[in-house]
């Protein structure tokens, strides 16, 4: 694969049903006139996500490809990214030059994040319906994905979630990394998502971006011998 055909590979992860496919469809709709896009879905059992995206009519169906995960969505984006890498490279070859390839992970649990061997940056998607305390519970994706999306804010009144509080909890867990409260019914939030992707695309293109690995463990804190609060991110036994 010649280096110049390499796209910005952007992962979209998060628990089942939080709105990953919808977010990708939204990005295709918003960006297809400005950027050359491709999409890879990781389906756990069906090709439902690829079909949903193809039928949304937001992108040439040929540019949307599904990867089987052998019922291991976690493995497919982390321990053995081979089938995904091949799918990405094939898309980049078949539709060269692509600007961005969006890779949707199979909906998994809070610990599933992309390996930096597969994506240059990743978005982790939560939704308000999963509960206002999810952001506070943390996890590698919540703490260290390049962007955390708190999705479906339009549902907040119905599920009793305080969105500003949830965003504040998330920001506290992320040490300054961006958090975006998103709803497809809130045009401003959609615009902010679009801008983030455009900015990230520019940063990755400029070559100044080093992929960050959210890693297997969230930052955590405990009280040290001298009573001081120690926060760290490395994995070790306490």
């Amino acid at each position, binding site marked *: 694969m010649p280096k110049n055909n390499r796209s910005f590979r952007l992962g979209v992860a998060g628990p089942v049903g939080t709105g990953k496919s919808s977010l990708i469809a939204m990005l295709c709709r918003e960006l297809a006139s400005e950027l050359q896009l491709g999409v890879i879905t990781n389906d756990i059992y069906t090709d439902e996500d690829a079909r949903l995206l193809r039928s949304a009519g937001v992108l040439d169906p040929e540019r949307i490809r599904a990867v089987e995960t*052998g019922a291991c969505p976690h493995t497919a984006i982390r321990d053995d990214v081979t089938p995904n890498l091949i799918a990405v490279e094939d898309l980049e070859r078949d539709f060269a030059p692509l600007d961005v390839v969006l890779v949707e992970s199979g909906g998994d649990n809070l610990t599933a994040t992309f390996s930096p061997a597969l994506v240059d940056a990743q978005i982790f998607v939560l939704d308000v319906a999963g509960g206002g305390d999810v952001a506070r519970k943390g996890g590698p994706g919540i703490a260290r994905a390049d962007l955390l999306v708190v999705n479906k804010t339009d549902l907040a009144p119905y599920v009793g979630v305080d969105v500003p509080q949830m965003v504040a909890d998330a920001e506290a867990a992320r040490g300054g990394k961006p958090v975006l409260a998103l709803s497809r019914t809130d045009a401003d939030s959609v615009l902010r998502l679009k801008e983030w992707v455009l900015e990230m695309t520019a940063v990755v293109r400029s070559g100044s971006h080093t992929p960050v690995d959210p890693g297997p463990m969230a930052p955590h804190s405990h009280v040290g011998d001298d009573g001081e609060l120690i926060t760290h991110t490395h994995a070790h036994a306490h």
Partner: protein
Amino acid sequence: MGSPELVALMLADARLPTGGHTQSAGLEPAVRAGLGADGARLADVASYAADRLRTIVRVEAATAVVARRLTLDGELVEQAEAAWAARTPSQALRAASRRQGRAYLRLASRVWPATTEFLKADAEIARPVVVGVVAAVTGLSAEQTARLIGYDDAQTVVAASLKLLPVDPADAAGWLLKLHPDIEELVTAVSRITTLAEIPAYGAPLVDVFAQAHAVERMRLFHA
């Protein structure tokens, strides 16, 4: 270069990143077609693996053995791929094997770069041909090569059964052990083959039919 025995263990290890978790060696469509009778006849799984070892896996193992030979002799390994394709009537099975071959090659070109002297790193070449080339450049014997192909297929079937049927993992390991004689029989049958013409042309038509159906199936866990 490292110990050939350790290389064989690496290649047989499902943790090697070659997309092995996406494969069921045709077990998924076979289960869909009734194999295992929804859990009432679990021993079908071991019989299925044994049937494969006697038929299509022999073709694959012989192909790998000959690809190894061709590589060592400085001949074009693509000839082994053509011989394999001529003996593999299902287009779906050929496509699945070439996809896997590509995953293997992608890894091998990084880990055993000598592989790329014989095959392009992004070639879509049947998996047994790639394994044969890797075997040649890492010093595996013909027996080790054939055993690897046989073991990997049986283990793929058995491991996939845990996801597809109500199987106790210890029972599954027991099936694999009982398949050892079948694997060794395959090794004996193919490891002395040196020419393309000697590659057998066994077929398993139902496996072909299942594979064709699976390729267009909407609900599936495994690629093949």
